[in-house]
C-alpha cells in the first residue's frame, strides 16, 4: 500500500500557501451584478404589505425577486426522503426569525444593491417570539409555526422520535438510587472565515454555472432544481473549495436565490454575505434541552435510563429531524443500558434555523451523558473512570435501536485517558478488554442486552 499509513503531502497544500487556491469570491466574471437581501428585522412578524416598485425602478438595478418568483416556494433538503418541507425560500406572509430573507436585489454594485433593498416598502405586524426550547415546548406557549411548536412527521405521523427498550419499570423499581439531571448546551455559530458566497453565471447553452462554497454539492443541486422546477442538467455546480464549513455550509443558503436573480437579470450575479450576516442569519449548531433520569445499583450498574430531549430546530426543520434521529440512536453514549425510555422532539423557536455541525446530534448526547455519568459517580462515591469502564459498550452489546456493536472502543479509550492523566486503576480494570461480557461483568440484567454481531 502506497498511501495507507504513509505521511503523504496534502494535494492542495502548495496552492493554499501561495495564495493560488481559487475560493468562490476569487472567481472573477466580467459583467457580474451584486446581490443583497432584504432580511426580516423581527424575530417573528406578519408581513402586512410589500411593494418593490421603487427598488425595481432604480437605475442600475437589474432584478428584484420575492416569493412570487419562486416556482416551488417550499422545499427542504429532506424532501427527497418524503419528509414534508416547511421553509419558504423567500418569506411570503410571515417571518419567523431575525434575518430571514424576504426579497433579493441584483444591481451593478453591492452598494447600489443595498440602497435598492432599503427602497423596498414593507410593513410588519410583530408577533410574540420564543427563544427558549423548553418554553416553546409548553402547551400554553404561543404558536409560532403552522405545524404547532414541534415537528409532527417522524415515521410519517409521529410527533416525536421514541425508543422503548427492555423493561423500564423494572429498572426503576429495582434501583438503589435514581440520579436526575438536566443539560442544556447552547447554540454555536460555525463562524467559518469564508462567509456564505456564491457566483452564478448564465451560459450560452441555457445552463447555469454555479460557483458554490457548499459542503453538500449534490444536496444543493437537488434543492436548486426543485425550487426552480428545472431538470438537474440545467445546472453545473463548481464546488469543492470551501473556506471553512464545519456543517454550516450543508444548507443551500445562497445558490437558489442567486440563480433566480440570474434568470431574471440574464447577467452573472454574485452574493456574498457580510460577517454580520454570517453571525446573525446563517444557521448554527442547535441548542438542546436534555433531561436524564438514571436507575442505578449501589455498586455502579446502570439498570435503566429515561431521557427527554428537546432539539431546538430554530424556525424551520431543515436537517433537524435527521439530527434528532441520530441523537436518539446514540442517546446512551458509550455505555450499555438495557432498559430505555427515550422521547425526543424537534421543537421550533424563533431562533435562526439550526443545522449540522461536527457530530450532528451526537455531541449533545456526549455532553449530557458524560456530565451525568460524573454526577452519578459522585453521588454513588464510585471512581468516575471505573463506573464508565464497568458499563462500557462491549462487542455484542446492543445500541438503543438494537444494533449489535462490532468494534466498540470505550474501554481502550478510557484506559488511554487513565494512562495519560495518571489515574490509578485497580488490576481487574487495567486488564479489561472490549471482548464480550462474561463472569461478574455479565450480571443477570445484562444477559438479554447481548445481541448477535453476525452480518455486520
Amino acid at each position: 500500500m502506497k498511501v495507507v499509513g504513509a505521511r503523504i503531502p496534502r494535494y492542495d497544500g502548495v496552492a493554499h500557501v501561495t495564495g493560488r487556491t481559487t475560493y468562490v469570491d476569487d472567481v472573477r466574471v466580467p459583467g457580474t451584478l451584486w446581490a443583497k437581501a432584504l432580511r426580516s428585522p423581527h424575530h417573528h412578524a406578519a408581513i402586512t404589505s410589500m411593494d418593490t416598485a421603487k427598488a425595481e425602478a432604480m437605475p442600475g438595478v437589474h432584478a428584484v425577486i420575492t416569493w412570487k418568483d419562486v416556482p416551488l416556494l417550499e422545499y427542504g433538503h429532506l424532501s427527497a426522503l418524503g419528509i414534508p418541507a416547511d421553509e419558504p425560500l423567500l418569506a411570503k406572509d410571515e417571518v419567523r426569525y431575525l434575518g430571514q430573507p424576504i426579497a433579493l436585489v441584483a444591481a451593478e454594485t453591492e452598494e447600489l444593491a443595498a440602497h435598492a433593498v432599503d427602497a423596498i416598502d414593507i410593513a410588519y405586524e410583530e408577533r410574540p417570539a420564543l427563544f427558549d426550547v423548553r418554553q416553546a415546548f409548553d402547551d400554553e406557549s404561543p404558536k409560532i409555526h403552522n405545524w404547532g411548536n414541534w415537528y409532527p412527521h417522524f415515521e410519517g405521523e409521529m410527533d416525536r422520535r421514541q425508543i422503548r427498550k427492555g423493561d423500564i419499570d423494572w429498572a426503576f423499581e429495582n434501583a438503589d438510587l435514581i440520579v436526575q439531571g438536566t443539560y442544556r448546551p447552547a447554540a454555536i455559530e460555525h463562524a467559518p472565515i469564508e462567509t456564505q458566497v456564491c457566483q452564478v453565471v448564465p451560459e450560452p447553452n441555457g445552463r447555469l454555472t454555479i460557483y458554490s462554497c457548499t459542503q453538500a454539492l449534490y444536496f444543493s443541486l437537488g434543492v436548486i432544481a426543485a425550487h426552480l422546477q428545472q431538470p438537474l442538467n440545467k445546472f453545473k455546480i463548481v464546488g469543492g473549495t470551501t473556506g471553512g464549513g464545519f456543517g454550516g455550509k450543508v444548507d443551500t443558503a445562497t445558490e437558489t436565490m442567486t440563480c433566480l436573480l440570474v434568470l431574471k437579470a440574464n447577467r452573472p450575479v454574485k452574493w456574498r454575505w457580510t460577517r454580520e450576516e454570517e453571525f446573525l442569519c446563517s444557521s448554527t449548531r442547535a441548542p438542546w434541552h436534555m433531561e436524564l433520569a438514571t436507575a442505578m445499583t449501589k455498586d455502579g450498574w446502570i439498570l435503566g435510563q429515561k431521557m427527554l430531549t428537546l432539539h431546538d430546530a430554530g424556525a424551520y426543520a431543515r436537517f433537524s429531524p435527521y439530527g434528532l434521529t441520530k441523537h436518539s440512536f446514540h442517546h446512551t453514549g458509550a455505555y450499555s443500558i438495557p432498559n430505555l425510555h427515550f422521547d425526543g422532539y424537534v421543537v421550533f423557536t424563533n431562533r435562526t434555523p439550526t443545522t449540522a455541525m461536527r457530530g450532528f446530534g451526537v455531541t449533545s448526547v456526549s455532553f449530557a451523558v458524560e456530565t451525568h455519568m460524573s454526577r452519578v459517580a459522585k453521588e454513588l462515591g464510585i471512581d468516575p473512570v471505573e463506573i464508565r469502564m464497568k458499563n462500557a459498550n462491549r462487542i455484542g452489546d446492543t445500541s438503543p435501536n438494537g444494533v449489535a456493536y462490532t468494534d466498540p472502543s470505550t474501554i481502550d479509550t478510557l484506559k488511554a485517558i487513565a494512562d495519560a492523566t495518571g489515574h490509578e486503576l485497580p488490576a481487574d480494570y487495567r486488564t479489561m478488554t472490549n471482548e464480550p461480557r462474561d463472569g461478574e461483568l455479565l450480571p443477570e440484567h445484562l444477559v438479554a442486552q447481548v445481541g448477535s454481531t453476525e452480518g455486520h
Partner: protein
Amino acid sequence: MNLTVNGVEHHVDGGGLTPLLDVLRDELGITGPKAGCHQGGCGSCTVLVDGEPRRSCLMPAAYAEGTQITTVEGIGSPDDLSPVQQAFVHHYAAQCGFCTSGMMLAAHAYIAGGGTDDHEAIQEALGGHVCRCTGYSKIIDAVAAAARGDDFDLTTTAVGKYTTMATGGAA
C-alpha cells in the same frame, strides 16, 4: 494613484479611501488577501506594507501609496516556496486555507524581525489571526520550524505532537 505590489507598480483609478483590500482584489485581481470579516477582526486580509503586517481591509488605499506592498503571491511561488510556505505545507498548517495567506505574512514579518521558535512569542505575533479549522497547534509548529531554519521534505508530512498516541509512539 500608484501602488507597488510585489515589486510591480500599478496605476489605480479608484478613490483613495477605498480599502486597500478591495483595490487589491477587485481592481488588481490579486486575490491572495481574503475578506473574512472586512472589519479588522480576523486577519485574513493581512498584507505587508514596507515589511509590516497590516490589515488591508482597514487601510485606505491612499495610505499605501509610495510603499512596498507584499501579498502572499509575493513571498514565493509554487516552484520557489519561501521557508514559511514550506513549513506550512510540511507541518499541515493549512486546512481550508482561507486564513493561511494572512497567517503566513504575519509569520514572515515575525521571522524577518528576528523572531525565534518560542511558542509564546509566536502566539503573540499571530494573535490577531483567526483560524477556525486547525486549533492553531500545527500553525505554531510550522512557524517555529521556519524560525529555526529547519529543512523541509515536501514529499512527506511532519508528525504532529498529538499523533504519537495513535501511531504507538512512532514519532
